[in-house]
């Protein structure tokens, strides 16, 4: 039996857990970690399909990792700036853009 189907199922489950974290939690850093979890889940499905269809999937995972690293650096810098201003990273206190 090939591992492609089970990998896609695990990837779907991890993605759903990541979405749950983004929707339910309030701490901005934990939400950020859940976004990383979603990126990882998608990477798993890329790798699973590349095991069946060729290497482009793995190269795409490489690019996703680069973008995720850049995103983590910039995102955490933004969080530091927000914390310096609001003394908190709780998203309920940061609602300046609300209409």
């Amino acid at each position, binding site marked *: 039996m090939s591992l*492609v189907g*089970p990998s896609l199922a695990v990837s779907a489950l991890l993605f759903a857990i990541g979405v749950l974290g983004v929707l339910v939690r309030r701490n901005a850093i934990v939400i950020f*970690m859940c976004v990383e979890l979603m990126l990882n889940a998608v990477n798993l499905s890329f790798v699973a399909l590349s095991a069946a*269809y060729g290497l482009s999937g793995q190269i795409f995972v490489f690019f996703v990792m680069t973008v*995720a690293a850049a995103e983590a650096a910039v995102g955490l810098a933004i969080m530091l700036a927000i914390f310096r201003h609001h003394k908190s990273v709780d998203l309920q206190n940061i609602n300046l853009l609300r209409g």
Partner: protein
Amino acid sequence: MTEQVFWFFAAVAVVSAGLVVAMRNPIASAFWLVSTMLCLAAMFFLLNAQFIGVVQILVYAGAVMVLFLFVIMLLNLGRAPSDLRRAPAWLVGVLLVGVLASQLMPLGGYTRERLALEYTRSTALASPGVVFDSTMSVTGMDPATATLERGVPGDIAAPLFQQYLVPFELTSILLLAAIVGAVVLAKRRI
């Protein structure tokens, strides 16, 4: 045997991911996320993507998570009194995720034959010799065998530095922009 090992790592990955969401202390969340990422690396190894697995451990479990822990400890975030959204938003979130998961789970029944049937109405694409990926130069060979024959890093390097050279160079510009952006944002005064 491979399958049992795969299911073990899959179970640990899913449980750790659940604990990332459930833990109230951000540092505990970060450590469970490291556990998820290590399990994913193990699954990459089992799927014949050894290079990606090593990069996953080095870049994600190593560099990115150290950055997260560093920021959490720098901001001195402890246990918040309550870290969940209020009742209506919370329930809507759980409902949406239930719908999403139930829609995505049928992917578990995926096979080559089914994908080929759905896209072309014929099973011709299901044979390993016919692929719709230009990086598969060795036709008529199953990807795992082809990787064994060519070696793992060389297998990735050839398309990365030929076919995908321009995107690869563009990522270096992206990383430079990210470094400059992070310094500008985090500095008090420039």
